[in-house]
């Protein structure tokens, strides 16, 4: 049986963490992921076309 203090501690930890999560992901991070992905796709396409020759 958890005491009230323990339950409140747990809920507040999640609230604090959740507040950062709810801020969303900054654009610079999303841009980075897009760049990494498109660089990889381009690399794959290049390799594929070279293999096809």
């Amino acid at each position: 049986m958890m005491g009230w203090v323990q339950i409140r501690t747990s809920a507040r930890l999640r609230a604090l963490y959740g507040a950062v999560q709810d801020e969303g992901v900054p654009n610079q991070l999303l841009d980075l992921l897009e760049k990494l992905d498109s660089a990889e796709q381009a690399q794959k396409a290049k390799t594929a076309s070279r293999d096809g020759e």
Partner: protein
Amino acid sequence: MSAEPTSFKREMLATLPSLRAFAVSLTGKHDKADDLVQDTVMKAWAKQSSFEMGTNIKARLFTILRNEFYSQMRKRGREVQDSDGAFTERLSVHPSQYGSMDMQDFKKALAQLPDDQREAVILIGASGFSYEEAAEICDCAIGTMKSRVSRARTRLQDILKISGEADYGPDAVSAQVTTHNHSF
């Protein structure tokens, strides 16, 4: 090659908000946390061929981020550790179900924990990892992880009791507690 080309990216995207919250809890600063997440994303991307099918990508990302944080700390010494750690900085989204004084006390209590206990209680109590996963992320035994969480919890409760917390009673406990009381 029949592997879904963007599934790794999709899993990363899904993990980023939680990974970022963990980074803020480690660094105490949003700008440093974002740098740390960025380094982690680049490292993980370079290593993605080693992420086998069925790998727990979330746990792997947390592991990489945590290792990166401590290795940067070692390299730069105190410079990185220029805050009290934890969520000391003002949050752009305020946890609304609590009064700001209430949360200030809690942040201070969290900041007073030793680093290993704070990260343990956050991974288990907020990030949603199992003890086994958290132990793997922190490279320690499951028993060690359990005792860190238990000590952190006791300590947080003691600090809050001293500040008069025990008199409050069950008033503001939110509905999510009853649905999430398995953790922590």
